[in-house]
């Protein structure tokens, strides 16, 4: 088949601007071949080149004494956890593929992030997922579509994670109209490795053979990277046959085979084939190695007959890797991949001329400087619209709802309701390490082989980010850290997924810039490095951009199993203490959204110094063995947090907030930051109080865990009482009944 002629239309179809095409011409000193045009197109897409976000990402704090591999250097950052052990972790989005085909889109998202981790030489040990959909309530066509997307995405994650044998131990799910038509699917994976096992994605050693291992190449997801960098339109339905199908079984074999191979010392470099497949992996390894790579398309294992070089180069077939093997050790590769029944082929060689050269038999179809492709792509400094922080909410404009009804309504809001329906579909126990299961604050995982205890949480309140992206991003970091502290953990690293709309629109670009700023401030404050992440732009549907969603995933360490703490109350008579101060803000709260249908005001204030002091104080009393339970107040405020601490126990709680001088709805549902509900045994109360006092944090004794299974909250002269069982039923049944009707 003859290649099409390069025309302005063809160039535009490839998503390259006229200026970018000029740059291609000047790099090559000639007109590109059709294949080269495709290669530039995917490599210079936002997804691969970060051309719109890279200047912003440079602002992240990425260094620290524990950082072994920095953000951006390799497929994932690596952090030391002591005794020669390290963790590699990262989050990745698969938003657009999931919008088109939720099951396969989400499944391949999980597959992709797992490959990023074992490419580093790490054994993947657990997953998390962060999901956003439009509203799933009601009978509208849109609600039905959102339910279908939600069900499909969860099933896809379950399919891939369960089959490959990795527990999904934590996550988050929010439902908001801004995600209708553009769901967010962010998947996180963490792996464990010895320091000396860190593998590099560089094509080292001129003359070394280049191997292709894993599944055969088919016409899957042609040019998906370019696709991810465009807005979803009616037209993108035409891209539909290009859906990639994941094969977790193949990936399980590939994972085991690669780890076995990496243990042999015959690998000079290794790189997964993710977005932009063979193209991206060849030019990136060459660029990192300061070498060149030459491959022959005809040697690539292929699934379909008659594929053109263009198709093979740009295919996004899953479950494939590129391995640079030390010369003379080819047989080791053969033995291992034959053992695991996986295809492999020697497809090329490392060269010294810096070129990415692709042959189709005797004919050279691509001959481009690797560095120009991988690292010298275009960079844009987009324009950010000026932003005025929102005015605080005028409380007088909010009628006071009856708290007796408001609490059950909040617990029945799908964003707050139990996500058991989700995580019950995920095997969250395989690998026998999950010490705190999903449903508490941070999940806790014991890495048996390293004898280390890790905690992890993923958070982002996009309402806050919508109202004020800077504050919202700060809060996302703080909330992650708070969840870790509640589990008894100290943060060691952050990975982030920046989900935003089209960056060409100045208001969207402001959101991106401010979020990066807020995350950076947060990470500096908690003294944790950003170890890597992902940017997903163009998250828009015909109705407009999504709420800005800079998802934060934070990993922490727990030094001693005795420090493990969960959110559930543990014993009748235990004393309940609220750490932190309650303000009077309702702006951006779920109470305002769920009960009054308003998304407005200023988000709650966050004071880093106070927040950090609280985490330290909490960890102090946890480590002294004084804390029975700890749970932070997030969406829905204090009342929701107290109810959640009763759930799953036989207890109730009797709370007296005293004369606060505030409206009851503010007392119960406001979302002031930095607040943690702890329970302690009566004999330890005074000790805990004096510890907290000497740490200088504010706290109040607010009540007692009761044998009577009622939650009862007194504020001023009003008493509100709910049977815990009723609240729990509402909390548990909301999502199943919406989904199974």
């Amino acid at each position, binding site marked *: 088949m003859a290649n099409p002629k390069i025309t302005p239309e063809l160039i535009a179809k490839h998503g390259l601007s006229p200026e970018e095409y000029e740059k291609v011409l000047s790099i090559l000193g000639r007109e590109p071949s059709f294949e080269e045009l495709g290669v530039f197109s995917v490599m210079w897409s936002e997804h691969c080149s970060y051309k719109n976000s890279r200047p912003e990402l440079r602002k992240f704090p990425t260094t620290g004494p524990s950082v072994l591999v920095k953000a951006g250097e390799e497929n994932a950052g690596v952090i030391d956890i002591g005794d020669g052990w390290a963790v590699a972790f990262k989050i990745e989005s698969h938003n657009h593929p999931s919008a*088109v085909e939720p099951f396969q889109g989400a499944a391949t998202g999980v597959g992709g992030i797992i490959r990023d981790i074992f490419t580093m030489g790490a054994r993947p040990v657990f997953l998390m997922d962060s999901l956003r959909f439009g509203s799933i309530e009601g009978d509208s066509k849109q609600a039905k579509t959102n339910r279908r997307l939600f069900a499909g995405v969860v099933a896809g994650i379950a399919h891939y994670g369960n089959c490959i044998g990795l527990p999904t131990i934590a996550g988050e799910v929010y439902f908001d109209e801004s995600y209708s038509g553009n769901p967010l699917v962010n998947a996180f994976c963490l792996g464990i490795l010895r320091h000396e096992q860190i593998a590099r994605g560089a094509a080292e050693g001129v003359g070394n053979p280049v191997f292709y291992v894993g*599944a055969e190449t*088919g016409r*899957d997801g042609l040019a998906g990277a370019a696709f991810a960098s465009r807005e979803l339109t009616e037209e993108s339905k035409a891209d539909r*046959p290009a859906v*990639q*199908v994941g*094969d977790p*079984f193949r990936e399980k074999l590939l994972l085991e085979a690669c780890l076995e191979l990496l243990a042999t010392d015959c690998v000079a470099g290794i790189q997964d084939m993710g977005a932009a497949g063979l193209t991206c992996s060849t030019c990136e390894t060459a660029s990192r190695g300061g070498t060149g790579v030459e491959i022959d398309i005809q040697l690539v294992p292929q699934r379909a007959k008659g594929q053109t070089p263009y198709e093979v180069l740009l295919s996004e077939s*899953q479950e494939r890797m590129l391995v640079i093997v030390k010369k003379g050790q080819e047989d080791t590769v053969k033995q291992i991949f034959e053992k695991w029944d996986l295809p492999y082929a020697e497809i090329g060689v490392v060269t010294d001329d810096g070129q990415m050269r692709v042959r189709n038999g005797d004919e050279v179809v691509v001959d481009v400087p690797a560095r120009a492709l991988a690292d010298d792509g275009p960079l844009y400094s987009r324009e950010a619209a000026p932003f005025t922080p929102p005015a605080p909410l005028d409380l007088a404009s909010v009628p006071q709802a009856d708290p007796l009804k408001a609490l059950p309504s909040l617990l029945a809001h799908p964003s707050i309701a139990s996500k058991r329906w989700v995580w019950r579909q995920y095997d969250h126990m395989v690998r026998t390490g999950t010490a705190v299961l999903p449903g508490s604050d941070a999940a806790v995982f014991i890495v048996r082989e390293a004898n280390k205890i890790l905690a992890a949480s993923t958070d982002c309140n996009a309402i806050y980010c919508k109202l004020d992206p800077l504050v919202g991003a700060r809060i996302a970091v703080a909330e992650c850290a708070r969840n870790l502290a509640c589990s008894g953990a100290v943060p060691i690293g952050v990975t982030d997924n920046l989900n935003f709309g089209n960056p060409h629109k100045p208001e969207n670009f402001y959101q991106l810039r401010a979020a990066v700023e807020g995350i950076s401030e947060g990470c500096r404050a908690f003294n944790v490095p950003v170890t890597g992440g992902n940017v997903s732009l163009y998250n828009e549907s015909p109705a407009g951009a999504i709420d800005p969603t800079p998802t934060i995933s934070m990993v922490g360490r727990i030094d001693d199993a005795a420090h493990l703490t969960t959110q559930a109350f543990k014993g009748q008579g235990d004393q309940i203490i609220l750490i932190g101060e309650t303000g009077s803000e309702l702006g951006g709260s779920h109470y305002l959204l769920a009960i009054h249908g308003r998304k407005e005001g200023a988000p709650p204030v966050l004071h880093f110094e106070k927040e950090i002091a609280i985490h330290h104080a909490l960890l102090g009393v946890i480590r002294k063995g004084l804390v029975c339970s700890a749970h932070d107040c997030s969406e829905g405020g204090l009342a929701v947090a107290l109810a959640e601490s009763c759930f799953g126990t036989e207890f109730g709680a009797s709370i007296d907030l005293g004369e606060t001088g505030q409206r009851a709805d503010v007392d119960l549902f406001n979302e002031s930051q930095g607040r943690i509900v702890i329970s302690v045994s009566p004999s330890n109360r005074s000790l805990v109080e004096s510890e907290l006092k000497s740490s200088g944090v504010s706290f109040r004794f607010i009540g007692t865990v009761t044998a009577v299974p009622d939650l009862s909250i007194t504020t001023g002269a009003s008493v509100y009482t709910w049977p815990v069982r009723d609240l729990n039923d509402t909390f548990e049944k909301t999502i199943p009944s919406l989904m199974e009707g």
Partner: protein
Amino acid sequence: MKAVVTVMPKPAILDPAGVAAGRAMEHLGLKKVRSVRIGKSIEIEVDGADEKQLHEICHDLLSNPVVEDYTLRILS
């Protein structure tokens, strides 16, 4: 009315189950397995529906048009 719907993965789409079954067949002694594709076969018995409605059901519910094709056969 009785009908049978066959839903198959589209030709260009990877079918991991088919690949695994094909390999197993070779292990069981078949010489050369060129291709195995696994889809669904759905038998339906309904009252008072017309062919057009069934096609809609096939398209919207029984198959996923993004990755699958269906054929509808009305038996009676």
